[in-house]
């Protein structure tokens, strides 16, 4: 896998995460919506940073999919918080994968910072979801017992699944 392949994978994850926050925001309390909006902005900024690294290599960044399928229905606050945590777990998995997949220092620098940011946001969502449950994970980006796997080598599918584009009429 080339550095461009790695970067395009990270880009797909960021696009999916940003889309996911758009889905869940409406089900959160007011203060939580502000946090979700900040998280969405952070993912968009990271998406732009990844896209720059792709362009630096003379390649066009793959655009976001026209639509995504979320892992389950998001009908209330609990589902929204759960999805937010999963989005961040998926992003953490993608960046952990990125760290392993390339020795390039620029990509690793971005990946290690993004992995930390995603892990911190994930724990904040988990604390809102279940304030008394253990919220920390020893290895963010790695599957945790009892939770859906997110440390997949194909990280975009761990958070959201890209849906095929609707047929053009």
């Amino acid at each position, binding site marked *: 896998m080339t550095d461009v392949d790695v970067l395009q994978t990270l880009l797909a994850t960021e696009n999916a995460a940003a889309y996911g926050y758009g889905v869940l925001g409406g089900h959160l309390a007011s203060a939580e919506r502000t946090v979700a909006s900040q998280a969405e902005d952070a993912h968009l900024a990271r998406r732009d940073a990844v896209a720059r690294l792709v362009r630096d290599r003379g390649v066009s960044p793959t655009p976001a999919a026209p639509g995504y399928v979320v892992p389950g229905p998001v009908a209330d606050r609990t589902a929204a918080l759960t999805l937010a945590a999963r989005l961040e777990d998926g992003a953490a998995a993608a960046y952990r*994968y990125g760290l*392993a997949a390339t020795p390039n*220092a620029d990509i690793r620098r971005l990946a*290690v910072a993004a*992995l*930390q940011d995603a892990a911190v946001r994930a*724990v904040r969502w988990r604390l809102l979801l279940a304030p008394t449950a253990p919220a920390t994970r020893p*290895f963010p980006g790695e599957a*945790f017992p009892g939770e859906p796997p997110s440390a997949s080598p194909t990280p975009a599918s761990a958070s959201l699944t890209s849906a095929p584009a609707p047929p053009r009429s």
Partner: protein
Amino acid sequence: MAAEVSLLAGYDAAITAAPTLAAVLSAIRADHAAHRAALDAELARRSPGRTAAPQPSSGTPAVRPPLAVPTPSPVAGPDAATTVQDLTATETANAAARSDDAIVAAAGPLAAVLGSVAASEAVHATVLATVLATVPATVPATVPATVPGPGTPP
């Protein structure tokens, strides 16, 4: 590795100094024990002569058994707020150091483990900062029986 060993000792001391925070501190300590085991295993894999300690690897389910809280020292230690503040600063510094290590790691799997450890430590700093907001700065974490507590007449 030395940083993880030092942090484990730091959390042992902190659990003694701030027993009311034992639950959260023990959970974080368990994360550091897992870090040490994973780093030990990763380094052993790269150095054939080195033997990994017989501890769970990063892929082993994290077990968070209740820790035996050491008996409080008769000597008054730092207050809980100071203890948590110190741990927060250490976690933050270690997260930065492990991030640098991850960037320059020769092997991809080691970079991934180091990156996850850095992220975990950043999370710990966040959690400890949240805890700190709930800890009164003026209340000692440990009040030895021989020392009057706050509000006790002389």
